[in-house]
């Protein structure tokens, strides 16, 4: 725990952290009412929190404050450095607000067609932005990044196993692997002609590169998930202090008891062969 909190609030927070963590972990045994209850609480709290943050971070400063300041400037002739002209300019944000409200018209089937206008704007803006950003970073820059010297490396290290060489440092070997990988994978995804002969062999090499990428990605995912487990376990151990009354032990016992009672009381049918 960081910052300065009221001791009661801090203790309550630590107990809630322990209980919710262990309740979610109880799903590893099987789906159970404790897990379900915590899942529903999480969804409810998250929805409320997201709404609050969206209002506080975007709707209030970018719409309410601007419109109010603009209105004051129009009424008073000048306000907080804004002229009447600035005040009128700020009123265009009503248009954005109306479009935002129209998105909610999907909730009324008779008026749901109205949501198509703001949706069209969102889709158009996203498509336009993605096209330009994607074209530069994912297309042009990547092509430039693949145009590498194969005859003379960027460094003195010709092979990755050369003394002092690192796997990521520029070397002829690395450049060669990269270029071969790009060309063969592109060949694998070239569907205009049948992949036979040389094209087929290159495609086979390409699929090996794709498989190695999947393997690396899977390894990274395992890495990430174990990190999350270490994080939760660290939180539980760090919170399990005498000053808080050993919340991890008590919460573990509580969750365990609840699952045992639930199994014995409500899952009798499943126990029969």
């Amino acid at each position, binding site marked *: 725990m*960081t*910052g300065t909190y009221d001791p009661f609030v801090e203790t309550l927070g630590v107990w809630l952290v322990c209980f919710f963590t262990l309740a979610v972990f109880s799903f*590893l*045994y099987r789906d159970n009412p404790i897990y379900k209850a915590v899942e529903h609480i999480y969804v409810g709290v998250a929805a409320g*929190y*997201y709404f609050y*943050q*969206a209002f*506080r*971070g*975007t709707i209030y*400063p*970018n719409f309410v*404050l*601007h419109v109010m300041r603009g209105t004051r400037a129009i009424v008073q002739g000048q306000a907080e450095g804004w002229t009447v002209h600035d005040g009128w300019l700020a009123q265009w944000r009503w248009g954005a607000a109306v479009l935002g409200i129209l998105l909610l018209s999907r909730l009324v089937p008779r008026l749901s067609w109205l949501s198509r206008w703001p949706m069209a704007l969102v889709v158009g*803006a*996203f498509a336009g*932005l*993605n096209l*330009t*950003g*994607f074209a*530069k*970073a*994912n297309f042009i*820059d*990547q092509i*430039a*990044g693949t145009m590498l010297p194969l005859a003379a490396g960027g460094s003195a290290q010709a092979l990755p196993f050369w003394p002092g060489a*690192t*796997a*990521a*440092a520029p070397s002829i070997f690395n450049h060669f692997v*990269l270029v071969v990988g790009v060309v063969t994978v592109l060949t694998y995804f070239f569907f205009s002609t049948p992949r036979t002969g040389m094209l087929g062999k290159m495609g086979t090499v390409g699929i090996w590169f794709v498989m190695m*990428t999947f393997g*690396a*990605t899977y390894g*990274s*995912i*395992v*890495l*990430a998930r*174990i*990190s*999350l*487990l*270490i*994080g*939760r*376990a*660290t939180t539980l*151990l760090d919170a399990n202090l005498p000053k808080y009354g050993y919340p991890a032990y008590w919460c573990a016992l509580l969750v365990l008891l609840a699952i045992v009672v639930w199994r014995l009381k409500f899952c009798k049918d499943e126990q029969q062969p």
Partner: protein
Amino acid sequence: MTERNDKVGIWERWLSAFVSLDRRWIFLIVASVVVFFLIVPVSMPVTVSEQVRAMYETIEALPAGARVHLSIDYGPGSEAELWPQHIAILRQLLEKDCKVICSSLWTDGPPMIEKAFTVVVGQLEKEGKKKVRGVDYVNLGFKAGDRVAITKIGSSFKETFPTDYQGNPTSALPIMQGWDTYRDIDLLITIAVGDPGAVEYIQQAQSRYNIPMVAGVTAVISPQLYPYYQSRNLRGFLGGLAGAAEYEKLVGRPGYATRGMFIQSAVHLLIVGLVLAGNVAQFALWSMRRKRGERL
């Protein structure tokens, strides 16, 4: 002959039991390994990778007073991987007297920004280095809009964030004086868990404004960033807990990530061992059944 059949029978029973082991036993073994090594810590050497060193050197090369946009695009769900990165980077920036402008594209980002400022500014104060909110650092809070928000931030920070997280007008803050766009930013850093995150910042900010950028991401995202590092869109990046541990080594303050590295390696060995053992057992079982003339 009977004795041999019995022996084969026992082995087969063992192998059958092993390949059909309830996955909950594996969960329990993994959890036990994690808890055991948390209670009995073991240290292991950390080797710094090229992209991590490049990130460190990019930040080290910043002059005092450099403006850095630090976008915190993660929440408590990814704290285990990204918090150590966040703390190490923030401390390095503030120690170098950089001006740190924080914002978030994730609703749960602003409290993480506040928490990190509380920790790092508190540590620096104890060491006699006072950092002032609004002068040395600022939390601009959350902004909805994903890629649109990134583009808007690039064209005007003050218009996109009329107020900071505490509700103060940004135009009145000393740290925000004399600049407004990405062209005035010396370095863009994102610590991100997904979309919107590092890739979106590369596409909408780095490539558009051609500003230096580095990133700290979860291990799931890190394979996606290698092409951008290769193409120099990224000057360097950290991937997951391993990246954080390497960075902790570079900044000379081993912490939570370094502590977690041995546990992670132990669990990885366990998983690799289980995958290998499971495959060997399955093939051995098939072989035994084939020898008995059973159809697989």
